[in-house]
Every structure is written in structure tokens, then in C-alpha cells.
């Protein structure tokens, strides 16, 4: 029982930590990119993420922050997966891996489909 409890606490605390730190870091990167953009006076338009990051400067920093925000749920699920593995919850671990897989496949598919040509 105490083992299960320990695993649950680890799961809870680990996920909460990833969420908190990840949110601050990603929003911080967006903020830095925005500030750099204001100082440099760059007025970039609407572009696909790959072009945005490739452009360098403020748009690349903002793009990295936005990508970081969207990848945060993957990190959260990874933390949950570690928690389930530690607690011996095989079924839940498989479900978590399936959701991570779906997110990564969608990321990959979006990146591939967005490529010109």
C-alpha cells in the first residue's frame, strides 16, 4: 500500500513539476522573443513554423517558445508514463504511450504535410 502511495505521489509531484517549470520556461521564451522583436523592430508575417524557426532572430525565438508550449503535454505524458512504470501499472503505461505516440505522429504528419512540394 505504501509502495502504491509512493508511486502515486511521485506521479503527482513529477507531473506538477513538469507542468509548472515547462509553462514558465515556454512563456518566458515567447516573452524574450517578443521583447527582442520589439527592440529590433521586426514585423514578420504569418509563416509555417519551420520557416519561422529558420528565419532566425525574434521570430525563431517566438517559434521555439510556441513549439515548446505545444510539446509540454508530451513531456507531461512522459512523466506520467515514468510514474506508471514505477508503480507497475502496465495498462495505464500502454495507454500513455499510445497518447504520446498519437501526439508525435500528429506533429510529424503536420511537419511533413506542411513541406512545400
Amino acid at each position, binding site marked *: 500500500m505504501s509502495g502504491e502511495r509512493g508511486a502515486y505521489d511521485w506521479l503527482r509531484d513529477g507531473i506538477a513539476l513538469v507542468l509548472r517549470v515547462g509553462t514558465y520556461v515556454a512563456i518566458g521564451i515567447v516573452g524574450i522573443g517578443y521583447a527582442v522583436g520589439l527592440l529590433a523592430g521586426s514585423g514578420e508575417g504569418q509563416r509555417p513554423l519551420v520557416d519561422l524557426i529558420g528565419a532566425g532572430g525574434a521570430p525563431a525565438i*517566438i517559434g521555439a517558445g510556441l513549439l515548446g508550449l505545444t510539446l509540454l503535454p508530451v513531456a507531461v505524458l512522459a512523466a506520467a508514463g515514468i510514474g506508471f512504470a514505477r508503480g507497475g501499472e502496465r495498462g495505464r503505461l500502454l495507454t500513455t504511450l499510445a*497518447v504520446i505516440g498519437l501526439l508525435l505522429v500528429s506533429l510529424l504528419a503536420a511537419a511533413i504535410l506542411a513541406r512545400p512540394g
Partner: protein
Amino acid sequence: MPLDLLLALSGLVAGAFGTLLGLGGGILIVPILTLGFDVPVTAAVGTSLICVIATSTGGAAVNVRAGRADVRLGIMLGAGTVVGALTGGVVAGLLPERILAALFALLLAYTAFTMGRGAIRGRSGPSPEPTMEAATPDGPSEPAYRFRRLPAAVGGSFVAGNVSGLLGVGGGIVTVPLIHLLMGAPMRIAVATSNFMIGITAAAGAYAYLFRGDVDAALAAPVVLGVAGGAAIGARVSGRIRPGWLVALFVVVVLYVAFQMAMRAVGSS
């Protein structure tokens, strides 16, 4: 520069209002960007999804730590919402702007109806979505209830994900009743679990918009920063404000916005 400031202020208002009313802000960001800044609906939806992730992850950090969010249930239902959001994100790229505007108008009208009915019944709208600052770690360390009708709930979560990916909202308007009414979880757990799921769902939908070029970085940055600040302010003042008048104001504003979106859909605006 003034445009940036206006965008940040709009995000601030959407974030604060959304947090005070337990909505997350997505339902306000899309109409603000579309009607106020003449941003195409797809770009507004993409930007809104990013904002929804930011507000969800901030709140979920506290909810998970306090044991209010049922992580296991959230991930199980997340499988349904992720598939739904992927479908919604792809379909949104294929639908004409007018159809998206019409669907959003319907969603707004439904939200106004739900909140208005709740207020008339003596409640103050949906339970406030606990956020990073507002929540206190007084919840159970482990959810002590048994949920039911899991297969039906996974099906329902697909619909929630679809609404999220298609219209750029969190989908909580579907998942909270699903977890509370259909599965029998306590309201507090339902709201916190839905908040945890929203980030995962919105991420699945956001990839399609980001890589398709439907998110303008120059536009998204001030809005995301504004929403994050607004959510923090909303959470800070939520305990001091009587939400009755706020719900009434929200219902009126949302009905007006729904009308404007409907006008845009039929091409009169």
C-alpha cells in the same frame, strides 16, 4: 506598437474573464481576433489553441499537485480527445471560413445558454476552473470514487477533441459534463481533470495550425503573454468578486458576439 498593445490587452481581458468564469479564454480569443482584428478564423483558432495550452498547463500544475485532477482518467479520455482534435485540426483546414464562423456562433450561443441557465438555477455558471494561484492544496491525495461508462465517455471525448481542434477552444464545455454527469465523478474532480486534459487536446490540434502557417508569431506572442497575465490576475481576484453580475455580462457579450459571428458567416459583416 499600439496594435501589439491592443493584442496583449485583448489577451489579458480574455485570460482574466475566462479564468473568472472557468472557461479558459479560448471562447473569447477567437471572436476577439476575428471580429476585432480581422484575423482569418483559421489563424485565430491556431493562436487560440496555443493560448489554451498556456492557461491549461498553468492551472493543471496546481490541480495535479493538489490531487484534484485524476491523471489516470485524464490520460484515458485524452486518447479520445487527441484523435478528435487531430481530426478537427485537419478538417478546419478544409472548411470554408464561413462554415467555421457559423459553427463558432453556434458554440457561443450554446455556451451563453448553458451559463445563463446555470445562473438562473442559482449557480454562478460552471465551477471556476482552478488555476495556479487560486487553488489550494486541500484536495484528496488520491481520487476516492469509481467512474462508470468509460467506453461512452471515450466516445464523447472524441467529440470534445473535435470541437477543440475545429474551433480553437479547450473543449471543457463538453468534457466537464461528460466526466461529472456521465461518469459520475465529483464536479471538482471533473473540472480539474478536464483542465488537465485540455492542454493535451489543444496540443494535438495546434500542430496542424503551427506547421500549416496558420499561427502568426507576431500576433500570437502578445496574445499568449496577455492571456497568461490575465489568467494570473483573474485567479488572484476570483475569490473577491461575486460572479453573478459577471455571468450576466458574459451572457450578453457572448450572445452579441455570436450574432456578429453569425453575420460574418452569412457574409453581412
